[in-house]
């Protein structure tokens, strides 16, 4: 079925900042080795979790959809078992899917005899010695095997003004620069079987960059994402934008939705900003995917009132007077769970607990009930709920 789809976005979403891996469930709250096995119990214990909109089947379908849609990025993995990949500080974190440039970072599947962590001197957001030292202390949860990691730092062959992520990524797309970098890394490789590098290995031509470095170093090479901007996240964002365009969908980037018209329990149109005036966009269905606090999907006033600024939907979360945060930074933060509540098909509820509108759905970080930072479920929730509500719309529209 051909659907006319328009995406309205104030700005880029969280993808260019996120890791580019697909996290579905990493902690529940204990470490999860198989999301497929853990999800039923997890959903039982968290009946309000957004995953219930998709169900486990839905999560699986959504991952398959992503693998197919982002085929050029070579995503691998799924629900059966979590991968264990190093963070930029050398910890290990669970994730469900990895793009090809990170596949050999999975320290569960790959028994690398030794990893050389190769950094670029002067690049401020990647510290190989720190990463390697911490990684040597880590043990993969699946086995008692210790990880051998060693650091090296090479001089950048170009100008020091290149030492920012977007320029490094672009320069590494040049064969001559890569040859030089590889020459400088090679002497410290010794018996290593894998090389970890900052996730800067090209933007559009990442595949060529990655393969070429693997060829030149004769080792597995994998990217370790760090501080934003995240090249793996940007590549995924680029890829999804292209997919939207090629499917005939349109993107209105830079434009904000400011209100919606609801008649007889149905949203009829959304009002959006333009350069000189507002305009109304008619819609048969609307999906609210405005994100969490950072993206502006949920707001908190000075007095502690939680708001959903676009439609004024009730927000479920710590109410005025309740403690919104915990003094432990990495502890459970009540505010994290805040969001919009929905019926089982993903339609936001009004204060009476009824769908706010028959044709309004919600997906992603705007939903209540997930704690993405602790669960490691941000992308999984965004993907699976988007997949599920789109399915509900397409099914309902037939």
């Amino acid at each position, binding site marked *: 079925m051909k659907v006319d789809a328009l995406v309205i976005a104030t700005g880029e979403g969280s993808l260019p*900042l996120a890791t580019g891996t697909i996290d579905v469930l990493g902690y529940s709250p204990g470490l999860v080795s198989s999301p497929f096995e853990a999800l039923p119990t997890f959903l039982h214990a968290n009946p309000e979790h957004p995953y219930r909109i998709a169900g486990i089947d839905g999560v699986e379908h959504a991952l398959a959809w992503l693998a197919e849609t982002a085929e050029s990025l070579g995503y691998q993995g799924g629900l059966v078992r979590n991968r264990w990949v190093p963070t930029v500080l050398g910890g290990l974190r669970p994730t469900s899917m990895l793009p090809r440039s990170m596949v050999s970072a999975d320290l569960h599947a790959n028994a690398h005899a030794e990893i050389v962590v190769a950094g670029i001197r002067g690049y401020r957001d990647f510290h190989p010695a720190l990463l390697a030292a911490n990684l040597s202390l880590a043990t993969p949860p699946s086995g008692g095997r210790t990880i051998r990691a060693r650091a090296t730092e090479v001089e950048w062959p170009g100008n020091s003004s290149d030492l920012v992520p977007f320029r490094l990524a672009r320069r590494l797309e040049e064969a001559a620069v890569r040859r030089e970098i590889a020459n400088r890394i090679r002497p410290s490789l010794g018996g290593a079987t894998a090389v970890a590098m900052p996730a800067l290995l090209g933007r559009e031509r990442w595949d060529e960059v990655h393969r070429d470095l693997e060829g030149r170093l004769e080792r597995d090479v994998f990217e370790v994402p760090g501080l934003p901007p995240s090249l793996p996240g940007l590549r995924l964002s680029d890829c999804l934008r292209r997919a939207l*365009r090629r499917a005939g969908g349109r993107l209105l980037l830079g434009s904000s939705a400011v209100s919606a018209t609801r008649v007889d329990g149905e949203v009829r149109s959304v009002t959006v900003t333009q350069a000189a005036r507002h305009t109304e966009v008619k819609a048969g269905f609307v999906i609210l995917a405005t994100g969490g606090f950072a993206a502006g999907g949920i707001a908190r006033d000075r007095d502690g009132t939680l708001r959903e600024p676009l439609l004024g939907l009730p927000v479920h979360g710590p109410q005025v007077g309740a403690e919104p945060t915990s003094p432990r930074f990495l502890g459970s933060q009540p505010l994290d769970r805040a969001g919009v509540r929905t019926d089982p098909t993903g339609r936001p509820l009004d204060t009476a607990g009824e769908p706010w509108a028959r044709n309004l759905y919600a997906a992603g970080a705007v939903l209540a009930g997930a704690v993405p930072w602790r669960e490691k479920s941000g992308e999984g929730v965004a993907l699976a709920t988007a997949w599920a509500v789109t399915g509900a719309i397409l099914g309902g529209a037939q």
Partner: protein
Amino acid sequence: MSARVDPMGSSDHLESGAALVRSSLDACIKCTICESACPFAVATPLFPGPKTVGPQAERFRSGLSSADWSVDYCSGCGICSRVCPQGVRIAEINAQARARLKERTGIPLRDQLLARPDVMGRLGQPVAPLFNRAVETPAVRTIMERTLGIHRSAAIPRVSPRTFQSWSRRHPPAPGPDRVVYFHGCSVNHFEPRLGRMVVAVLEHQGLRVDVPEQGCCGLPLQSNGNFPAARRYLTRLAHRLAAAADVSVIASSTSCGLMLKREGREILGVDDPALADVSRRTWDIFEFLRDLHERGLLRTDLQPVDLCVAYHAPCQQQNHLMGKPAIDILSLVPGLRIIELERDCCGVAGTYGLKREKHDISMSVGEDLFHDIRGLEPDAVLCDSETCRWQIAKATGYPVVHPVEILHRAYSGGGRPPRARG
């Protein structure tokens, strides 16, 4: 807590646009999304990036003393403002900072010249054949580069021996009861009057009477070269002339100049004139207007087949209208026409930026991905709504690059020859 800024949130904001632009910097969370999207920062170390030069450096600028020079290397394409999830008006902040820098340093003669296409057009017109031959003569261009600093390879348009205004004065107005005002801009008047005639024909075909009042430059090139006082004078004069013409829709075929009326004059220049506010609300980009007609069932669809394969590039300023790509929406109605949507953001010219000796190479490197894609597609023609972008792309690729209205005009007038390359 979220501190997003909605510049259009209420109509009061429309009045205090320029101040709001600057205060939006407090919403910056340093997420770097703008830095990864900026086509210029990746192409030259001379521009450290929109976040660094914009919200970050702005905190250190007070009064006339600017902390840096690099803001001069911002092209003003506006992509940063569009991708910012927090609503920070980065490009606008940079434009204002550049003007303050220029107040201190002065504006070189070259930039004063490039910023006045109307003057260039008026001077060139009486000697058009000579002027056009001269700017195509390598020796002349070498001299121009050495003395003026206009890059020898930069695309310079040909001056028309007759202005669009002189044609329209003699053109009998169509009788239609409904009227529109056509804001043609300097480019149609002096360099591409043929395009203006096609715009008029397409609008008259809808049964509209097209008024073409005396107008003049909108001040956009002055603004981007940092001369705000002159830009404000030009824009205010234009707004008054357009406002006085008739209380009807104002149609622009130059997408960047239309944006000046809609938004930039208020938000960047801070022009707070009721005439501008009035005109701003009723200004339409030509395809935005046609799409609106179509949505209301008023667009004539007696379109003849046009058997061409065209590649459409939506220029930065067109995207800054936040209206999508109406040219594609409308041209999709033309039978036989195959439209390929190009997927690059910027051609690199950014108005007068790419003409400058010290910036031309940066500009070409920004556009290279676009040029590469075009060469690979081998289209019959490239379509683009902005004139300086058309000239840059044509020069860089050798392909004919035309305003999308040319295709619509052809479809209304019964097919016809494919477009030919310029020059």
